[in-house]
């Protein structure tokens, strides 16, 4: 028959249809989807759910009491403060670094790019130790700082520094490939139309990178709030003073105060979830614009 390749009306249904070249057999498709979903459930949803149920084990009343504990409350405040300082700093730094690397040619560019990645490649504990070596009482700067009454280690400034160091690459890493791909002709067009450098940045460059920037900031923020290793080294674990939320979780856990530990962990997880949901909402609302900004 001449029409064997396509399903005839009298045939056994649409399973006879010629498949689209890029699609797989139904069994393979469902198999792959199931495998992926199982993996996500096992390694993401289940642990998260465990944290939530553990926190709620004694009911929501206990959950709230635990959170209103003064030490826990101080930890929450400190975490927000540290993120509030570290994220804007790295936002400015990230844009500046990405701008320099993507749009200009200069000596030592490759070295600078590698340097930006440094915080990713060393263990956070070392990132913390760097500051102990730099500002500790037996260091070069230590005695001078002490004599001037400036406390950096085991205080908020040290925690901020360690967090800034660890979250340093997020924004820059996100922006560099984006800005390199976009090239400089948009900027040149603006300049040729008479725009100043600042106007060009504000009206052309920034709108072109805003989605990448937002993503970088969200990641940077998530890490700034969640950083444990580096902060643990420099914080000194002074209760109610230098404990951030991740440190507080550890302390409570080590004291077998499981409900409290999981309650704080829940809050930390929620902060991360909120940022992700926020990002998805923005992406949904501006999907057309995002697509346009990626097109040439």
């Amino acid at each position, binding site marked *: 028959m001449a029409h064997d390749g396509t399903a005839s009306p009298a045939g056994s249904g649409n399973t006879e249809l010629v498949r689209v070249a890029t699609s797989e057999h139904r069994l393979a498709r469902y198999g792959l989807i199931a495998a992926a979903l199982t993996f996500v459930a096992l390694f993401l949803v289940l642990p998260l759910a465990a944290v939530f149920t553990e926190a709620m084990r004694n009911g929501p009343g206990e959950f709230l009491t635990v959170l209103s504990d003064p030490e826990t409350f101080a930890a929450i405040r400190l975490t927000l403060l540290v993120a509030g300082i570290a994220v804007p700093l790295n936002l400015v730094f990230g844009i500046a670094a990405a701008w320099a690397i993507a749009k200009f040619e200069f000596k030592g560019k490759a070295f600078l790019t590698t340097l930006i990645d440094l915080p990713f490649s060393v263990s956070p504990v070392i990132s913390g130790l760097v500051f102990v070596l730099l500002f500790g009482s037996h260091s070069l700067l230590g005695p001078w700082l002490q004599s001037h009454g400036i406390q950096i280690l085991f205080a908020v400034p040290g925690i901020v520094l360690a967090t800034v160091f660890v979250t340093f690459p997020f924004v820059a890493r996100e922006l560099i490939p984006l800005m390199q791909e976009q090239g400089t*002709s*948009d900027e*040149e*067009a*603006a*300049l*040729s*139309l*008479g*725009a*100043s450098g600042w*106007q060009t940045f504000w*009206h*052309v460059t920034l*709108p*072109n990178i805003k989605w990448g920037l937002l993503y970088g900031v969200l990641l940077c923020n998530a890490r700034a709030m969640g950083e444990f290793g580096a902060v643990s080294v420099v914080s000194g674990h002074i209760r109610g003073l230098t404990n951030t939320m991740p440190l507080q979780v550890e302390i409570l856990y080590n004291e077998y105060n499981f409900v409290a530990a999981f309650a704080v962990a829940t809050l930390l997880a929620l902060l991360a979830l909120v940022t992700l949901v926020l990002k998805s909402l923005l992406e949904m609302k501006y999907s057309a*614009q995002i*697509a*346009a*900004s990626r*097109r*040439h």
Partner: protein
Amino acid sequence: MEVRVQNIRKEFGRFPALNDVSLDIRSGELIALLGPSGSGKTTLLRLIAGLESPTEGTVYFGNEDASRKTVQERNIGFVFQHYALFRHMTVLDNVSFGLTIRPAGRRPPKADIRKRALELLDLVQLSGLEKRYPAQLSGGQRQRVALARAMAVEPNVLLLDEPFGALDAQVRKELRRWLREIHDRTGHTTVFVTHDQDEALELADRVVVMSKGQIEQIGTPDEIYDTPNSPFVFGFIGQSNILPVRVENGQLWLEDRSIGVSAPGEADGPAQLYFRPHDIELLDGGGCIAGIVVQTRRVAGTRHVELDIGTANTKVEIELPPEKATSDRSRLAFRPTRWKLFRD
């Protein structure tokens, strides 16, 4: 505005991109910079714009030395090959950009800016699309927006870098004709860069042929095509045949035969004969170039015939009217009617 480029030299690192280039562009002229890639044509355009600064030399806008001015101060309009439209702005905002970012003292009122932008969109035949975003336009439409945006600031000179390079052949042709119309209507001094000789010859008042960082020839399209002044220009523009000949007593010889072309006043010695495939006449014999037909191709309104003339395996292509029937292996004799000699 008149633009003069004087003894410009530009080096990137140690690599010279332009070497002692001088060029006078008359006010209101439409001029093409034509050359293969790497010839320095885009660099020259960007130097005029102020997007690059010369290693040596001066650019004059009118009588004013523009070399020390920034790109913003030069007040030029630049159109990029890949449009470089601001993708987060509507078409109208793109066109208005140059006016809205002016400092308060020099900025026209909002209503005037809008009116001017709409007029320009009308000029480039995009009325009604002012609320669209660049991503919602076709390539040809985007380039027209880019042109309107460049013209909005009343530029001293309009500079276009391969403006049709990213478009398909049909749209290219249309836009070419349309750009000429716009130029004739607005009278902007315009310089455009292209590697497409058809584009340059069809569109420009004068063509500047460039090669290896230098200007080879400047002239009207007719001058460039009919009287190329160097082997490079002859070879780069249009089709050409090259034959190694010898001059003896004002006559041209191809190996041991006179080809019936006289070159009075030419010194004796070897030379290269350049002629175009269509600048020939067929002959029955006598002093001529004779060869055997190797291949014939019908290209639009002419028949291209490839001849093997037996000399050092040289193949020659001539163009004949299509009704002139030739068969393979048949013998044809011809003589160039318009030609040029170059010596090494």
